[in-house]
């Protein structure tokens, strides 16, 4: 059935049985996406959800839009082809830490480098779920998993730091269970031109339960999470009494009071001219004593790849004239045989 605008959450639900484990963080992400999509004013048929392989990549089956469940790691490349061919579509990519950072790492960095207009939702649960519990490229050192019974020795990626290194024009982070924040973030993702790269901290309650408790559990998270707001100082803590202050080339956590005021703190700037600022935010969570920043870390304007590709084609058509197949077949020189 054709769905008329305005759409509702129901318009984006499919009749397919959702096959994630009960209690999985993916349900919360699905609910948030299904509630934000109707707000965007985009006809349902203009959405295409593309995914790779893994638990997160089942996402398209549960969205009543166009959807393509591809192969492991390749969603960014499939989506790039689709977006370049069809810039009129809203192309979203659902992926996971194994899918996009391990087997599909190359496509991820090149999608970011090109700034293809894709909305990327990276479900980061720091584990391989669908293959039943191996450590992933975001698992912490020492992770005991099926394939690392004595603990992993691999250093983990920070997905957002990696994205910045690849030239990302938009990076954001949110948490599966903090629904209002997740929805706000998704709205920002939807409005970005170019690659909107979003890390969603997601709990795998079967193979890596509690991996994000410090930032997800209501009773402790306020001391560990830093909600970023453009133009506002970096303040966190249950009592909102802690902040981030510049210290030479580095930053430090300070407690407000005793002469330290909000005016001494770093003010968040999504459009900071240096990506080093966003890199500092992206890697903050790996430092003891520092909070995990969530929200939009960086959002800068840059032409989207698909627009540039298609504009070039139009320019060449305008300057050379529309291609003439007959002339092409004849080539530069011909001769006649009678």
């Amino acid at each position, binding site marked *: 059935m054709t769905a008329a605008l305005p759409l509702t959450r129901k318009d984006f639900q499919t009749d397919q049985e959702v096959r994630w484990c009960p209690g999985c963080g993916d349900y919360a992400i699905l609910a948030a996406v299904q509630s934000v999509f109707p707000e965007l004013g985009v006809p349902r048929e*203009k959405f*295409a959800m593309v995914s790779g392989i893994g638990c997160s990549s089942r996402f398209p089956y549960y969205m009543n839009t*166009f959807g393509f*469940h591809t192969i492991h790691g390749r969603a960014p490349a499939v989506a790039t082809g689709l977006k*370049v061919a069809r810039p009129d579509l809203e192309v979203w990519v659902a992926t996971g830490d194994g899918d996009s950072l391990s087997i599909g790492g190359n496509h991820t960095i*090149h999608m970011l480098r090109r700034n293809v207009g894709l909305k990327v939702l990276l479900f980061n649960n720091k584990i391989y779920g669908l293959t039943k519990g191996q450590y992933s490229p975001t698992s912490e050192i020492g992770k005991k998993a099926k394939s690392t019974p004595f603990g992993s020795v691999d250093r983990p990626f920070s997905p957002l730091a990696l994205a910045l290194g690849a030239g990302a024009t938009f990076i954001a982070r949110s948490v599966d269970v903090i629904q209002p924040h997740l929805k706000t973030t998704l709205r920002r993702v939807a409005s970005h031109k170019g690659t909107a790269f979003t890390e969603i901290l997601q709990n795998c309650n079967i193979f890596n339960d509690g991996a994000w408790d410090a930032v997800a559990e209501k009773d402790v998270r306020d001391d560990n999470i830093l909600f970023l707001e453009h133009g506002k100082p970096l303040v966190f803590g249950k009592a909102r009494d802690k902040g981030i202050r510049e210290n030479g080339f580095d930053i430090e956590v300070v407690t407000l009071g005793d002469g330290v005021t909000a005016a001494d703190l770093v003010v968040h700037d999504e459009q900071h001219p240096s990506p080093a600022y966003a890199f500092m935010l992206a890697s903050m969570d790996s430092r003891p004593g520092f909070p995990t920043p969530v929200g939009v870390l960086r959002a800068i304007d840059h032409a989207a790849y698909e627009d540039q590709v298609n504009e070039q084609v139009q320019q060449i058509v305008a300057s050379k004239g529309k291609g003439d197949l007959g002339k092409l*077949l004849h080539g530069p020189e011909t001769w006649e*045989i009678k």
Partner: protein
Amino acid sequence: MSTSTATAPPEAPRGTKREILESAVVRFCGDSGDGMQVTGSQFTNTAALFGNDLSTFPDFPAEIRAPQGTLPGVSGFQVNFSSTEVHTPGDSVDVLIAMNPAALKTNVADLRAGGILIVNSDSFNEVDFKKAKIKSNPLEDGSLAGFRVFQVDLLKLTKAATKDTGLDAKSVDRSKNFFALGMCYWLFGRSMEGSLRWIDAKFKGQIAEANKLTLRAGYAYCEATEAYQTAAYEVAPARLPAGTYRNLSGNSALAMGLIAASERSGLPLFLGSYPITPASDILHELSMYKNFGVITFQAEDEIAAVTSAIGASYGGCLATTTTSGPGMALKMEAIGLAIAVELPLVVVDIQRGGPSTGLPTKTEQADLFQAVFGRNSEAPLPVLAPATPGDCFWIALEACRIAIKYMTPVIVLSDGYLANGAEPWRVPSIDDLPAFPTKFRTDPEGYKPFMRDPETLARPWAVPGTAGLEHRIGGIEKQDVTGNIDYEPLNHDKMVRLRAAKVAGVVADVPDVVPAGDPEGDVVIVGWGSTYGSITAAMHALRAKGHKVGHIHIRHMNPLPKNLGEAMKRYKKVLVPEINLGQLAFILRGTYLVDAISYSKVEGKPFKTIEIENKVLEVMK
């Protein structure tokens, strides 16, 4: 042996009497920096414009510039041009131009007894002998006694010709190939006009001037040197079917075929590709044709090349990806996805020597198994193979038509020899091209993603953006008709058989084979791909000697033509020459229980006509 050594053109009478030849094979060989490919291409274009039938064989090393003067650095270009029909670049060479001792050493074995050998004597010195690992001077040790040797100081003569241009020594050195080209134009009484025009278009200022002076000097040098008056030939234009002709290489033909398919289907063309020898030229060529609305995407790797094309196909483009064998291996999982989701896709494999990196610039036909069988599980798809450089155009069109009609990926197996080889090609009128205007599904009424056309078993192509047709596809097994995820045993069995039946049904679009030569007899030579020329020439030669020989050339490798089994049975013996270890022979034996005799050669170069001729005589015994 007649020898001429000269550093300046002496006086000589004009008005040469030329010996008429039916055909001639000329090979230019030298260092990979000596411009042999340019020289050969120019000579070829001139022969084509003159009206000769022709066939070329460029042969160059994988290294861009191997150390100068060494054996691995030798690059060659062979052209067979004729007043009659030509099928191959020629078994042996009539005129060999060797720019240095390494080129002479690696090529002289192909020069026929009594053939003309032009050597750049400037390069025949101790230093260059050492680089070529030659112990004695071949110009003095009698090893060239069976040939007509002309020694020319190419560098000195080029310097003399360009002394007024003020060009530096290095640039002068790079002009010397035009001296050799000018000489060859004189030897065969050809006009220099085409090449002079080309030089003006290609080069600027001093360099253009120097190249033109050198070309003219080479021509004048032969004209004025008495010794060459006995080496003046004429090869009359060929009597080809009436029409407008152009010279065309396989990769150019493929690129044009894809553009033609885009126009005839009404779909924009998308190429996802990653640079790889010998396929890159298709990417280069299509990226020039953006005014045809072509989108070329140089992907980050082979996998992104094919998967971006799958994404574009999902969006409603005519999508293609071009590569060679190693790239094919990387694409295979994605091709399996295209099979599973039943989206049209054209995958072009320009085969080269393997395995692994193998021989990047040399030809081979050893990806047939990879194309037909090289995916996990039951994953059939149509496979097509062009027979000649010009046929690459028609095969590209046909591949696109089948891909869209049957909603399936299609593999085109060309090879390095077809890709770089060129032949005169009769330019078709646009009306002669098949038209296959493509319609997407737009009607939501009764739509199911995996419902099928009862005749072709193709599913509907419903592109994103079509209201009411929102649906999900994926590589996971899907339920018949609805496309929903389904792991039921019987459903899987049904889907495996449906996908196989759909591809098998493509045979409805495959023309029956019509053997060339004798329709029944002693031996049928069954070939595919670029062996077409050698087999055709061998078949003609054998029949001229009274043997009953037929030739079946397969262009549709999967599914095979309906009457192939029947057609082969009309001969006592079936011989299958291939540039691999018998892959088609294996398939024919498995498919038809026919006693196909494999004839293999895997040297990175095409069969010689005489090799096939001798093999046929051997199996006839």
